[in-house]
C-alpha cells in the first residue's frame, strides 16, 4: 500500500472530487479494497446526482430566448418605416392576443387546467401519500409570488408551487380533501364570467370567477369540490 497517501487522505480527496485519480490515489486504490469500494460508491453517487440535477427544461425555452434576443436587440438595424409598420401590426396583434389570452373560451381554460395537472412534471403533486406542508409562511410566499393572498391561510396543504400557466405565474396548491387530493390553481390573469365546469380525463371540478381572475378547484377523486367554492371565493384576494 502506498505509505504517502493514507485512507483518510483518499476519502477526503474523493469526497470532494470523486473523479480524481492522481498517481498516489490510483496506486492506493489498487492496493486498498476498502478505498476502492469507497471510490466506486462515490462515482455511483455522482451518477445519481447528475441525473437528479438534470430537471426537465421547459419545452421551447431555447427557441423563445433566441427569438426574444433577436427582437429586443435587432431594432436598431431596422429601417424606421418598417419599424413603425411593425409596431402598429404588433400592437394590433398583442391587443388581440391579450384579449383572447385573458378571455379564453370556457372549454379552452378547463382543458388547460387539466392539462397542467396531468403534466408529467406536476402529476406527482396529487400523489395521495404526500405529507402536509406545515410551513404556512412558505405557502403564503407562493401565493404572494403569484399575486394572490388568502385570508386566514389554507389548511391541509400538501403541495405549493409557483407555476407558469398560459405564460403567467399562478399558485398551484394541493390540499388533502375528504377523499383524496384536491388541486387549487389561483389564476390571477385568467378571467371567467361564470362558473366553468371541469370534466375531462377523469378530473372534475369547477373554475369560479374571482374578480379579474379565477380559481380552479379540481380533483380526480370523489372529494366534493362544491364546499370549497364559497370558502375560497371569499378568502382569495389579488395583490398585484
Amino acid at each position, binding site marked *: 500500500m502506498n505509505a504517502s497517501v493514507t*485512507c*483518510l487522505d*483518499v*476519502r*477526503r480527496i474523493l*469526497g*470532494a*472530487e*470523486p473523479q480524481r485519480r492522481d498517481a498516489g490515489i490510483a496506486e492506493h486504490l489498487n492496493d*486498498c479494497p*476498502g478505498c476502492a469500494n*469507497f471510490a466506486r*460508491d*462515490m462515482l455511483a*453517487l*455522482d451518477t*445519481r*446526482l*447528475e*441525473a*437528479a*440535477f*438534470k*430537471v*426537465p*427544461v*421547459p419545452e421551447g*425555452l*431555447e427557441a423563445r*430566448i*433566441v427569438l*426574444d*434576443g*433577436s427582437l*429586443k*436587440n*435587432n431594432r436598431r*438595424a431596422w429601417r424606421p418605416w418598417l419599424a413603425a409598420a411593425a409596431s402598429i401590426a404588433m400592437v394590433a396583434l398583442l391587443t388581440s392576443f391579450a384579449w383572447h389570452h385573458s378571455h379564453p373560451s370556457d372549454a379552452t381554460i378547463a382543458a388547460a387546467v387539466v392539462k397542467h395537472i396531468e403534466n*408529467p*412534471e*406536476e*402529476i*406527482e*403533486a396529487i400523489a395521495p401519500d*404526500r405529507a402536509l*406542508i406545515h*410551513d404556512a*409562511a*412558505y405557502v*403564503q*410566499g407562493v401565493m*404572494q*409570488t403569484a399575486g394572490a393572498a388568502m385570508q386566514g391561510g389554507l389548511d391541509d396543504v400538501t*403541495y*405549493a*408551487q*409557483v*407555476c*407558469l400557466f398560459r405564460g403567467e*405565474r399562478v399558485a398551484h396548491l394541493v390540499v388533502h380533501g375528504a377523499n383524496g387530493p384536491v388541486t387549487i390553481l389561483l389564476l390571477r390573469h385568467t378571467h371567467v364570467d361564470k362558473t366553468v365546469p371541469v370534466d375531462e380525463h377523469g378530473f372534475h371540478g369547477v373554475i369560479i370567477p374571482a374578480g379579474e381572475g379565477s380559481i380552479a378547484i379540481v380533483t380526480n377523486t370523489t372529494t366534493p369540490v362544491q364546499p370549497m367554492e364559497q370558502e375560497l371565493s371569499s378568502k382569495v384576494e389579488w395583490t398585484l
Partner: protein
Amino acid sequence: MSDTRNKPESGTVSASMGTHQHRFEMLARAQVPGLYRYAYWLCRDRALAEDLVQETLLRAWKSLDSLREEAAARRWLITILRNEFMRELSKRRNTVPIDEMPLVDHSANVGGSDTDMFDVRRALAKLTPEYREPLALQVLMGCTTQEIAEMLELTQGTVLTRLHRARNQLREHMGLTGAMEEGAA
C-alpha cells in the same frame, strides 16, 4: 454620379448582425439547458429560473462581442446568472420578508416519477445553498474546483471542504451507510 462614400454599408451591417445572431443562437442552444438547471437549483423556483436564464442571455447578447473564446462562455454566463440572481434576491428582500420568500420547494417535485430520482432530489433540496451550489457547479456544470473557487470568490480549500461535506450530508439524507471517513485506516 451618386456618391456612395458616406452611405452606411448595409450589407456589412447585416452580415455583422447575422454573425452576431448566429453566434448567439449557437450559444443559447448549447448553454440554455445547463443554465436553466443551474438556475433552478440556485433558486428552486421554476418560473424564476426561467426568468433568470432569459435575462442572462439578453445581457449576454448585448456584450457578446466581449466574449473572445467560446470555451469561456459557460463560465461567463454562470457569472452573469449569479449576478442576476443576487439582484433578484436583493429586490425581494426589499419587498418580501425573507422567511416568506418562496424560494424553497418543499416538494422537490420538479419532474419525473422515478422514486430514486425523487429521493435524491429531496436530499439535494435539504442541502443548504452554500453546499448545494458548488456541488451543482461541479456535477451539473462540469466546473473544476479552481473555477468554482473563482466564481464563488472562495479559496480552493473552502470549495473542497464544502464539496466533501455536501456529499457527506447527501449520503446521510439518502440513508447511505456511515460517514465518509468511516472505515478509513
